[in-house]
């Protein structure tokens, strides 16, 4: 029965990830693609060696290719987050199924994306030296893994401290620990500044904001959709009640 619950949550997580991926895809297409095109135009205007034949046309890259990548990313993280949810459920404090899902999504956004992004931000085409790609890839994934493990550690630390310090102080202390360790990682890991000298600063800024918007959309939508589906699965009565009180402004006293 418990295994069936895990499977049901996993399926719902992947569906929620797909739905969130669709929304993120709209944001990526509307906010991101114009900046990718501008960056490629810059790259082509400044590069002498570039200009070989295209394996995949720009039209396909910006539509079908983008969709493939963003939707697979959404489904994959939807599944992983649903599994993390199965571990977190009932273990992270007095939160119901919906609140747990939203908290998990926020934690996922911060740990998987925002923390690595602040050290190794998304780069448009034309920014980034191909010679350092191996190093940048390793460090990026290292930063993601480090940040996720640290987030899990922070939650466990908060739980351990809660009986002694109380929930509020334990959360603040664990959060401070997270920020401190992330700060140390930022200070000691190597940085890269590979934007060409004349690359437009505004374009880089807008590109990175668009990349952040894609992730904020993805994880927020995931938290809300998955929370709804999880609550219907785990607490159908509570889900029905919350719908009932929403439509009935003044319930009859009993």
């Amino acid at each position, binding site marked *: 029965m*418990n*295994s069936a*619950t*895990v499977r049901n949550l996993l399926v719902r997580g992947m569906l929620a990830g797909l739905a969130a991926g669709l929304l993120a895809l709209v944001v990526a297409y509307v906010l*991101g*693609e114009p900046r*990718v095109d501008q960056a490629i135009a810059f790259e082509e205007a400044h590069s002498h060696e570039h200009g070989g034949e*295209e*394996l*995949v046309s720009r039209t396909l*890259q*910006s539509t*079908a*290719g*983008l*969709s*493939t*990548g*963003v939707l*697979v*990313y959404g*489904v*994959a*993280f939807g*599944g*992983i987050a649903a*599994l993390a949810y*199965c*571990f977190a*459920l*009932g*273990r992270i*404090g*007095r*939160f*119901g*199924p919906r609140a747990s899902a939203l908290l998990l999504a926020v934690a996922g956004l911060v740990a998987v994306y925002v923390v690595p*992004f602040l050290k*190794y*931000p*998304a*780069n*448009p*085409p034309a920014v*980034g030296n191909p010679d350092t*790609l191996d190093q*940048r*890839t390793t460090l990026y*994934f290292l930063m993601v893994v480090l940040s996720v493990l640290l987030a899990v550690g922070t939650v466990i630390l908060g739980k351990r401290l809660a009986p002694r310090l109380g929930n509020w102080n334990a959360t603040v202390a664990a959060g401070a620990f997270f920020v401190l360790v992330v700060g140390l990682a930022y200070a000691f890991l190597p940085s890269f500044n590979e934007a060409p000298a004349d690359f437009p600063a505004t374009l880089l800024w807008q590109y990175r904001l*668009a*990349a952040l918007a*894609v*992730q904020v959309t993805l994880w927020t939508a995931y938290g809300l959709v998955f929370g709804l589906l999880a609550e219907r699965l785990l*607490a159908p009565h*509570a889900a029905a*009640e919350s719908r009932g009180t929403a439509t009935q*402004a*003044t*319930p009859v*006293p009993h």
Partner: protein
Amino acid sequence: MAQPAVAHPTVTPAAPTAVPAKLPISAVAPWAVFVGILMLVLLYFVGAEQGATSLVSGEGVHEWVHDARHLLGFPCH
């Protein structure tokens, strides 16, 4: 908003805030291992294949997910 809460002060500790039951680790672990690895393989193909490392020869995978890789924040090239 405030009116029903005042009229029914006993309603507050109702079912919606109840903490859901824990799922046993032994029930979650097998799913986490097998499906978790499968999902990580998917992420690898979106995020890193034919970049720093390459399992499939050529540039097809890289070129196909090129825009997604850039906009999802992975180092692309």
